């Protein structure tokens, strides 16, 4: 088990990122708190045999997404239509592009994870495939599908890209 100082450091370094992943997937503050604590508890329980800080980061991302997914698999979360309302985060006036954020948040879970990791965290497709433990082709498919859905919601001008340009 890792010592308190190591956990404190991880909280400082990756806390915001875990909170963002929770924001992407969860709608209720109490769920966010549960997932946030579980992620860092699992980190504290880990052997700490990480090869680099990049390895720690990728591990924390994977655990965070898995934790969100397992919580959302519960009966309550599958049956109850939770609000997609940014105002509950007190963000609606601060965001420059609330409609964009809403569109990304409304994507199915796997698609928004890929969009987030690629566009926000800057991971390459092959790295995302490793983090999510999926084949590269699957990630390509999700990325393509996510972008198509975003374009449908936001209009064709929202992207200026070519499919051939994946890193």
């Amino acid at each position, binding site marked *: 088990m890792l010592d308190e100082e190591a956990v404190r450091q991880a909280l400082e370094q990756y806390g915001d990122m875990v909170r963002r992943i929770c924001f992407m997937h969860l709608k209720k503050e109490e769920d966010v708190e549960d997932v946030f604590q579980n992620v860092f508890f699992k980190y504290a329980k880990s052997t700490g045999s990480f090869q680099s800080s990049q390895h720690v980061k990728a591990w924390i991302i994977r655990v965070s997404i898995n934790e969100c997914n397992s919580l959302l698999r519960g009966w309550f979360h*599958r049956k109850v239509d939770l609000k997609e309302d940014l105002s509950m985060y007190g963000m609606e006036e601060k965001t420059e592009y609330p409609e964009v954020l809403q569109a990304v948040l*409304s994507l199915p879970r796997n698609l928004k994870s890929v969009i987030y990791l690629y566009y926000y965290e800057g991971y390459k497709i092959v790295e995302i495939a490793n983090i999510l433990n999926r084949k590269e082709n699957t990630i390509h498919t999700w990325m393509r599908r996510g972008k198509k859905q*975003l374009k449908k919601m936001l209009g064709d001008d929202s992207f200026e890209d070519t499919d051939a340009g994946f890193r």
Partner: protein
Amino acid sequence: MIVLKIPMQDLDKIKASDDLKSKTLQTITNKKKKRNPFPLFVPSAIVICLIVIVSYNPFTSPQPVPEISMIQPYSYISIDINPSLELQLDQGDNVISIITYNEEAKTLLKEINVNGMNAKDAISRIVEDRNTENYIVNGYLQISVYSEDEQHSKDLEALINESLSGTLDASQYGCSNSSKSNYEAASSHHMSFGKYQVMDMVIDLDSTYTIEELQKYSMMELKNLYESISGQNLPEEHNSNSGKHNGRNNHHD
């Protein structure tokens, strides 16, 4: 090179509050302090269980291995999107055979092989295929499950729903259970039971439509037709009430 115009920088504003961090640290410290009063109990119990399981393992004595052709399907999954096909599964939910109902399905299965795959993986493989993608973006995926073992059928439906919810928007697909009579009625028309179920619902609302006529519709067209006649969305659960339209031969005037 991708030039991204979608601004994700709004996410910079999402921060973990100091309160959340300190609460987390506190919780972890408290959990660490709780020690297991029986540190050897759990591993010992596991070892004992393993010994018991191994000594009764049926695989340690020779068992007759059934021929593939002898395995009877235990459950069935129909997939319509417009490739229309049926996966037949063994009791372990592995695909043992596939029936194609149209040319699109035959083309799709030339590209991918899902035989022997677990049902969940097989559906993911089909849904994630590049050929299927256009159908999904512009169409509607209907999946239906049937097994004589009702509980198994429900479990399978839940598994598929869970898997699809991660990849598709709820408006892009529907997954439901089917009855034995619906399954048999669809088989007699040589069509997938998922599509048949929706056709049955359309005919219930407007008996001037015929099975033969609706057979030419894509899943999306059928869904739209149902919604325009009924004035409501295609329900997620639409168990057919006993395939009463088996052999129906109405004509649309």
